[in-house]
């Protein structure tokens, strides 16, 4: 497998990462090196092997649907780049 420059830009768009044309070239070579390493996986026959996501095979815990946290909006918004009147500010999305 080999990623083209267009592939790199497409992945970068999906990841919401701006990549300049010169960065894309440097990234392309490194990503292809990494994917060559990853390609070693394909040589192994894993038919019938169950995928493993958690070492202990635990099930997701449930809890009562009740409020457990206190309101700390001010403390959390104090670290926001831009907040006003309890709202996070972002560029206009709907015209």
């Amino acid at each position, binding site marked *: 497998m080999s990623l083209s420059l267009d592939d790199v830009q497409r992945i970068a768009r999906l990841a*919401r*990462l701006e990549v300049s044309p010169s960065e894309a070239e440097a990234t392309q070579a490194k990503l292809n090196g990494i994917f060559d390493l990853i390609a070693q996986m394909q040589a192994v026959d894993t038919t019938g*092997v169950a995928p*493993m996501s958690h070492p202990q095979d*635990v099930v997701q815990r449930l809890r009562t649907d009740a409020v457990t946290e206190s309101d700390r909006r001010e403390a959390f918004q*104090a*670290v926001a*780049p831009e907040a006003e009147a309890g709202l996070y500010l972002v560029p206009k999305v709907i015209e």
Partner: protein
Amino acid sequence: MSLDTLKSLQQKLAAKQVSARELATEHLAKIDAANPRINAFITIDRDGALAAADIADRAIAAGNAGPLTGLPIAHKDIFCTEGVLTTCGSKMLGNFVSPYDATVVAKLKAAGVVSLGKTNLDEFAMGSTNESSHFGAVKNPWNLAHVPGGSSGGSAAAVAAGMVPAATGTDTGGSIRQPAGFCGITGIKSTYGTVSRYGMIAYASSLDQGGPMARTAEDCALLLDAMTGFDERDSTSLQRTASTTVAELDRPLDGLRIGLPKEYFGEGLADDVRAAIDAALAELRKLGATTVDVSLPNTRLAIPAYYVIAPAEASSNLSRFDGVRYGHRAAAYKDLAEMYSKSRAEGFGAEVKRRILVGTYVLSHGYYDAYYIKAQQLRRLIAEDFKQALTQCDVIAGPVAPTTAPALGALADDPVQMYLSDIYTIAVNLAGLPALSAPCGFGANGLPVGLQLIGNYFAEGRLLNVAHRFQQATDWHSRQPG
């Protein structure tokens, strides 16, 4: 010079030979003296440390002290600390003063531990050399031209240089064990799910696990027992009580069966590292252990499986850094999409971007089964290897890394070479097993060699017991850089 361990400082505090404030002041002075050379700390929390020390002294005076009250440590800057800068080694969080404590931080604080500051790390814990930190590389105290390992390199270097007796670390693919090995200290990653991940900035959630780093196994046991235990705020936390590894430390090693995986002693292992490991195994045999050859046939596949699973989970976890709620936001943008992509492009470094891109690709439509599911199937095969091997032995021993610490810059521009150097550590994370690194000698270049011990699920007490017995019979752990 006598070795300052948590244990020895605990005894001095108990005997009223020193106060917690004096300990904090003395260690802050050591940090001030050594940090400009080593760059192990991103933040020194002088005021917070002295305030915590005063609280500890009052508890001691009132007779309310616990075993850890007043002991100075440092936290890897991946743990959120309320009111203290928490950067994760990234420009993205260069201005992030956490509004809350990680569970590990809160537990140690409640135990009376005094945090002196936050240690340097590879950006978002992604690296094996500590060179990807936005705040500059950490230097190995044994030789400033070499890396301390990563990603918990700041914690390892701070302990090795005597700035603090112990520090917290996290281990996703070897990030506690490998820097502990490279810096000549002891560090343990416990069974996945035993140390809460709440407030520990996520890299690869199914692999990340916090743990202690200190000079001795005994000190690691003291800290680990205070760090473990069920936490309802971490959905992967196991419903178990805190570990009681201290109680197991003195157990004799008679009859202990140590498995030696042939894949960990084959091609690629440096001769000087092999010699140090062989000498350590001879010492363990003298202490009553026997060794048996075992095999972990899928070891080779751990690297590609890890470098699919970890970036996939990272790309998902790091999507939260969008310039809206916290962290870096670009100065100029024309719309919301550009605000995201510019903020992320400016805030993340090259290695983090690479892993986000790899992860995004392997999770994208049409590739998920071929990469992520395939890697999770290999993960199962790797875990089965350990299960099989551990029927023939009680613990598995081998090197932590194929070489001693590389020179600064040697791997900086070659991610694939850096990934390959993780060969002996990452399978443990994929399987979710506990493992530690303990100093066991020096390589030809005078840099430390770490012995890795891997145990069955929840056998961290046995691992620390083996390392403690080894440390009572040897003095590698008490060697200090000149």
